[in-house]
């Protein structure tokens, strides 16, 4: 074996073997996907088949000519023919931060390829989709991955996943300019085509509704959080690169674009996605649908105390705190001889993050002896010591 390749091999093997493969995973990636080809090259290197590895990398560069990580590995494989390499990305005079970025991208991509979510696992967040929500997106900023799910009769089925970049300073956005990606339950609000954007955003952009109702309640600010593409001078950006946006490669963005429904497609962003078995997912879903049903029944009962027991101490609507809300509801309910509340088209998401929170959106059909009203409503429920209570309620 060419001694020049020993150190390189070591660097790659350490990288490669530190990421064990998971046996059975959901749906394999397409053979031509970037990560499959990249992983193949790494396997060739680990198997000391360097010529084959170079061939793999060159094949990858033919379809992804601006893929910087592949160029880095190609440089290593070529230079190793001439002199010993100390490390992965052993370019002379290389800016250390860029090498670190590319190494992190390599790790993120290899890990995503080797540790695919297990078959039958569902992200904890997608508890119930509306029938018209054909797809849902779950982003894992920790793993630099975006997962696309299809709504199959209410059950999310994994479709595809993509490498993403997120905020330079990580996740949990609080303030404008903090260069962090928000964590929470959002949806796509509009579509900005390429021709309306600078090259920086690549093939298009899809803004999401950060800050949502809960973010505002928490005093979080900032704006302009988008899913968007990549500038034309690179295939992808490092895992931590954006000012808070979720960035995809242009081919991936193009693929994703076909599935996005403006105003509908949920985008749940987590720092570390929690996956549930179908049974656990079903149990969570039922528990929570029961809580909503209880709230609905208690409202219909006109027992205002029972109804108000569903609201948290720190509840607030757009313009009322719990005291004002309670006063208002007691007054309204006293004039009713009957109330009928219909709840339909329920979408239900668990919000990622520190708080144990659900976001529920539904069509509310309110009828009573003196008033009827149909509206789309959104509630945020917080788990307080084992009891789910509403912390926010308002029109959606």
């Amino acid at each position: 074996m060419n001694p020049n390749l020993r150190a390189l091999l070591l660097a790659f093997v350490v990288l490669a073997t530190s990421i064990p493969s998971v046996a059975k995973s959901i749906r394999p990636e397409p053979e031509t996907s970037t990560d499959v080809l990249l992983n193949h090259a790494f396997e060739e290197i680990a198997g000391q088949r360097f010529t084959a590895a170079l061939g793999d990398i060159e094949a990858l560069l033919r379809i992804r000519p601006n893929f910087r990580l592949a160029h880095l590995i190609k440089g290593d494989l070529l230079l190793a023919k001439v002199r010993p390499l100390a490390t992965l990305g052993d370019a002379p005079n290389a800016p250390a931060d860029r090498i670190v970025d590319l190494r992190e991208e390599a790790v993120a991509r290899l890990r995503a390829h080797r540790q695919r979510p297990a078959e039958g696992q569902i992200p904890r967040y997608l508890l119930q989709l509306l029938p018209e929500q054909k797809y849902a997106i779950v982003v894992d900023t920790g793993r630099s991955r975006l997962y696309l799910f299809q709504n199959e009769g209410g059950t999310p089925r994994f479709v595809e996943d993509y490498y993403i970049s997120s905020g330079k300073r990580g996740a949990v956005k609080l303030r404008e300019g903090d260069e962090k990606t928000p964590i929470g339950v959002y949806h796509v609000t509009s579509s900005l085509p390429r021709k309306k954007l600078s090259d920086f955003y690549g093939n298009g952009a899809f803004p999401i509704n950060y800050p949502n109702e809960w973010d505002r309640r928490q005093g979080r600010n900032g704006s302009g959080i988008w899913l968007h593409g990549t500038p034309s001078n690179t295939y992808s950006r490092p895992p931590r690169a954006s000012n808070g946006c979720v960035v995809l490669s242009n081919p991936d963005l193009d693929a994703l674009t076909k599935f996005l429904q403006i105003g509908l497609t949920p985008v749940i962003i987590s720092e570390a996605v929690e996956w549930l078995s179908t049974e656990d997912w079903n149990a969570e879903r039922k528990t929570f649908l029961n809580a909503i049903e209880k709230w609905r029944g208690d409202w219909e009962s006109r027992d205002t105390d029972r109804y108000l027991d569903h609201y948290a101490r720190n509840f607030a609507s757009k313009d009322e705190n719990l005291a004002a809300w309670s006063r208002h509801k007691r007054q309204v309910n006293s004039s009713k001889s009957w109330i009928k509340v219909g709840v339909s088209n329920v979408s239900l998401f668990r919000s990622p993050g520190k708080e144990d929170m659900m976001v529920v959106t539904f069509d509310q059909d309110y009828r009573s002896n003196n008033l009827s009203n149909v509206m789309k409503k959104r509630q945020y429920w917080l788990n307080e010591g084992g009891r789910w209570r509403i912390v926010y309620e308002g029109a959606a």
Partner: protein
Amino acid sequence: MRPALRLAALILGLSLSALTHAQTDDIQNINRLVKQGQHAQALDRVNQYLATRPRDAQGRFLKGLILAEQNKVADAIDVFSKLTQDYPELPEPYNNLAVLYAGQGQYEKARQSLEMSIRTHPSYATAYENLGDVYTKLASQSYDKALQLDSSNTAAKTKLSLVRELISGVTRPPRLSARGEPVKPGEAARPTAIAAAPASNSTESKPAVETKAAAETKPAAAKAPEAQSEKAGTPEDAIKTVHAWAAAWAKKDVDAYLAFYAPDFKTPKGEPRGAWEKGRRQRILAPKHIEVSVDAVKVKTIDGSSATVSFRQRYRSDTIKADSGKTLVMVRVSGKWLIQQERVGN
């Protein structure tokens, strides 16, 4: 590292015996003009020379060199490129084509040409050196793309130094290809047959490489082949040859090592000579270091033109240790003992 690519100045692979004295004179005269920097005149003369023998490889090669010196890069590329098509077995045109491509910044093409050069002639040291430079350049281009470094300045420098190299490359003494023996186009490599034949401008060329390699290995091997007469081989010569063979092997001097094998060497598995040589080259070059020592060398039979020699062989590399008995059947070729058969055991 700045690539300094070397032009092969001569086609060593051409059998000089195929040229008449007049032709040899012509070629040498043109060579002289090139060295004196009289490129225009040299070009006229080489065109005259080629008028009557348009396929002549030596003349076309010289023409390519002259064009390269005149910085007529496209024309030079054309000449060398056609030479590689007409004489795909010659490594030098591939090498020079690569140098010209590299000068244009077409490093990928340069790499392909050099890899071809080495494929046709695995021991071609110039191509190896050039390929190292091209790999380095390609690696640096890849790194630049990976890291978004602006290397436009260094790229310009590289190009300039290449131009200088092109000029100096043909004025320096000709380099011998590592094996150093002329081979007729299309003819299988014959390691030793014409080993002592000088290259075309014999006044400047060194003795064939294997002679030199053998001379460098050990005092025991100092008796260079050309110093030996055609007289019948002695047992002492056979034993010295075995030591020199082991020394070349231990030095990982593959060319010198392979030169110890007779033209009719019986390859161990009956494979073609080329495949066997390639395999040996890989096996010898792969370890970081090799130790080979032989002792108890005994000449079992000898009749002046063939000999059977047995000895203990002790082999150490960074990966393998092996001790074994070995027997070499040697034959006398051009005044040298060469290995015709090699087998493990006594």
